[in-house]
């Protein structure tokens, strides 16, 4: 991201500091505090007061020198004139230790620099100190390095000196190298603290970036010292926020691989920074998301959502999960780690931003969570959120519910029993033209109204909560085809409930469906058939044809609806649809014709449209539904036709009809084969009925018997008392003796 202007950066950092570094944070403070002005006031009075550790004579001597002379005396003793204080290194027989050698000059140096700190306008002197310190930081002696680091750290307390430091690439490099190479934890801590201080200004960020600070800081994330780790992550965070190129550098330095394990740490503020870093690195970057996944990111993030209460941390973590939730590889991992349940914990709190992030994430994840268990609580919260006026909340709640009720009978039942139908209807009413709400809401209702034990309950509930007219209106113009498609499917399900048939008719569903069907069919004809498919709003017009015909099929179960459908000159179209290359369209058009053919007049019309030819073809369909409907229509057409015609129909019915459902039809086979054994069938009037075999437990007397038959009554055969039709006289085979 581009470096922000200094003022913005400073303000942001200040704000951020205030939120991150509260007094009770437990983080080693002092690293970020800027020494206040009081000290400088105090020091400016230096000439009048004594500082600790200096004798009166010293003070007197120093008092006589100007400031510049004092500093020069400290740094460049060889340039002193007579009368000025001189300090030389002692030459002892015993070689002084490095500490001893350093102690005095470094102490003086420190003092000099304290002066510098107090005189903010004297940058020149500060500039002179920098090369010296730079050299010392690279010293072989670790103690020297340590002292130099301490001094530099002090220098970062004041703005002027800090500025000088960050303007020296060599200095920053030296700090970075010292941090990286030292074996001393205290040195590392100082150096890290320096970099951290520098990272609050644009120049400092740039200096750190240019001196290879990022790889070094990434390494520091593995430090055993918590404060080092904290400085490192915070500095990296600043770099990621404000320094262009930082993200790439962090990724190249394997920053993600180092950061993800840090999710196991327990400091909430530390975790908040870390997760924010992950979010910055992974947003829009697929490779980063995969690295996070490979290092156990989903589990770590879900753990945080489940176990922490700090709002800022929950928010930053939810943002990472949101970013990961669009990644097809991360999605199932988050779901498997219990992400749905964990996110669902935070939908009822007071933080609006947290709730909304969790909702968006849940919505993204929902299509991968249809088999998850333990979502009862979540489902109930979502149902209650359907009452919201916030369009974002509605979009998410309807979307999540739509997916979670997909092919999941348990979820469907729970949502139905929790008042989900009524709530969804209200959401539909409030959605208006907002398709992002209407489409999933209607889909959810469609799911609830089929394929689970409480489907009938849901079908009734729609009617009882005045949903039918609202739903029918969705078929009107302007057509947003995904909504139309979902609505048509819902109407079909509603029509499965006989009590809904009249209300559906009364709200004008049938003409709307027929018109939609015609419109969609015309579109498919216009663009040709086969490979060239017509899409509108991402929906194929063939799907609309199928959906409308399917809905009309179920509506046609009602006799009045049947008449209305037929009266709209739909039969020719349905017959034409029998020729469709889409299997499902063949099925639903055969189905609706099957219902219409219950009426004799309709049956004749169907025949007149030449339906026999395509229907005969469909008898051979491997799809049992299609073959059944086709056969039924042919039976109904052929009722008044010649026996030759009927034989032909029969011949066309392959013996493999229903071969895919052997168990269910075994009974039929056994029965029919048994009845063939005992009955002669040379000439059969197909309207005749035969006594069924096997009713030995029925009483023999008191049954209406044809007088003619009486003489041919066979004692081992019994009659179905439900029979209404009289027996036809037939020649029978010789009866075996009992």
């Amino acid at each position, binding site marked *: 991201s581009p470096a922000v202007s200094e003022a913005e950066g400073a303000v942001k950092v200040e704000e951020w500091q205030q939120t991150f570094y509260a007094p009770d944070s437990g983080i080693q403070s002092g690293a970020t505090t800027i020494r206040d002005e009081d000290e400088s006031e105090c020091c400016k009075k230096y000439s009048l007061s004594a500082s600790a550790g200096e004798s009166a004579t010293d003070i007197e001597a120093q008092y006589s020198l100007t400031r510049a002379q004092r500093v020069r005396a400290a740094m460049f003793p060889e340039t002193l004139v007579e009368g000025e204080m001189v300090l030389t290194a002692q030459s002892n027989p015993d070689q002084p230790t490095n500490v001893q050698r350093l102690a005095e000059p470094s102490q003086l140096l420190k003092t000099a620099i304290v002066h510098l700190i107090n005189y903010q306008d004297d940058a020149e002197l500060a500039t002179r100190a920098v090369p010296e310190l730079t050299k010392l930081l690279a010293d072989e002696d670790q103690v020297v390095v340590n002292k130099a680091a301490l001094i530099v750290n002090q220098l970062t307390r004041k703005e002027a000196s800090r500025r000088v430091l960050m303007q020296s690439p060599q200095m920053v490099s030296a700090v970075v190298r010292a941090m990286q190479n030292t074996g001393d934890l205290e040195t590392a801590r100082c150096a890290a603290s320096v970099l951290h201080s520098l990272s609050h200004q644009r120049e400092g960020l740039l200096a750190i970036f240019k001196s290879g600070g990022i790889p070094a800081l990434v390494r520091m994330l593995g430090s055993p010292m918590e404060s080092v780790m904290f400085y490192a992550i915070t500095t990296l965070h600043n770099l990621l926020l404000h320094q262009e190129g930082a993200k790439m550098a962090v990724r190249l330095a394997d920053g993600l691989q180092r950061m993800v394990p840090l999710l196991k740490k327990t400091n909430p503020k530390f975790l908040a920074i870390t997760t924010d870093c992950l979010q910055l690195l992974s947003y829009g970057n697929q490779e980063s998301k995969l690295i996070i996944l490979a290092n156990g990111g989903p589990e770590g993030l879900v753990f945080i959502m489940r176990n922490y209460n700090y709002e800022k941390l929950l928010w930053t973590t939810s943002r990472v999960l949101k970013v990961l*939730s669009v990644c097809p590889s991360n999605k199932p991992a988050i779901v498997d780690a219990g992400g749905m349940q964990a996110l669902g914990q935070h939908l009822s709190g007071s933080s609006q931003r947290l709730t909304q992030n969790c909702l968006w994430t849940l919505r993204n994840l929902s299509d991968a969570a249809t088999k998850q268990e333990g979502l009862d609580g979540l489902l109930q919260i979502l149902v209650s959120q359907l009452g919201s006026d916030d369009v974002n909340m509605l979009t998410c709640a309807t979307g999540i519910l739509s997916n979670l009720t997909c092919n999941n009978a348990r979820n469907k039942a729970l949502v139905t029993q929790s008042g989900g139908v009524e709530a969804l209807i209200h959401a539909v009413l409030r959605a208006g033209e907002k398709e992002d709400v209407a489409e999933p809401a209607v889909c959810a209702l469609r799911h609830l109204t*089929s394929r689970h034990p409480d489907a009938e309950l849901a079908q009734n509930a729609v009617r009882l909560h005045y949903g039918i007219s609202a739903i029918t209106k969705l078929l009107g113009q302007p057509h947003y085809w995904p909504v139309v498609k979902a609505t048509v499917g819902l109407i079909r399900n509603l029509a499965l409930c006989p009590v809904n048939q009249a209300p559906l008719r009364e709200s004008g569903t049938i003409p709307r469906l027929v018109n939609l069907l015609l419109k969609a069919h015309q579109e498919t004809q216009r663009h040709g058939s086969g490979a060239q498919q017509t899409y509108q709003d991402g929906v194929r017009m063939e799907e609309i044809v199928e959906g409308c015909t399917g809905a009309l099929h179920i509506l046609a179960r009602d006799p009045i609806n049947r008449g209305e459908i037929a009266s709209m000159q739909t039969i020719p179209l349905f017959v034409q649809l029998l020729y469709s290359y889409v299997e499902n369209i063949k099925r639903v058009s055969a189905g609706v014709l099957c*219902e219409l053919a*219950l009426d004799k007049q309709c049956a004749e019309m169907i025949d007149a449209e030449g339906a026999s030819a395509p229907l005969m073809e469909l008898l051979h369909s491997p799809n049992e539904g299609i073959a059944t409907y086709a056969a039924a229509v042919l039976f109904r057409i052929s009722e008044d036709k010649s026996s030759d015609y009927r034989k032909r129909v*029969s011949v066309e019915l392959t013996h493999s009809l229903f071969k895919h459902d052997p168990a269910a*039809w075994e009974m039929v086979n056994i029965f029919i084969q048994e009845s063939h054994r005992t009955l002669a069938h040379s000439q*059969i009037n197909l309207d005749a009925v035969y006594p069924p075999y096997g009713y030995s437990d029925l009483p023999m007397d008191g049954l209406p018997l044809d007088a003619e038959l009486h003489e041919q009554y066979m004692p081992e055969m019994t009659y179905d008392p439900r029979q209404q039709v009289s027996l036809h006289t037939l020649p029978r085979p010789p009866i075996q003796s009992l």
Partner: protein
Amino acid sequence: MNREEAPGKSPEEMYIQQKVRVLLMLKKMGSNLTPNEEAFLRNYAGVVHSQMSQLPQHPIDQGAEDVVMAFSRSETEDRRQ
């Protein structure tokens, strides 16, 4: 002509068998039958007919399967606070 396993089955026998199957299947799929068809079933399918009503609805015609909606097509950046 004879496509059944049992030998000696006439076309008429076949027709009855097939019609029984078709009508039972129709019932199972939730469709209506004419009064004649109901009678036909009662006469020929009797026991089987009554048992068929106890079987669960055939899944062939329960309508289109539920389909998930894919929401995670694109990332949205939220405004940083």
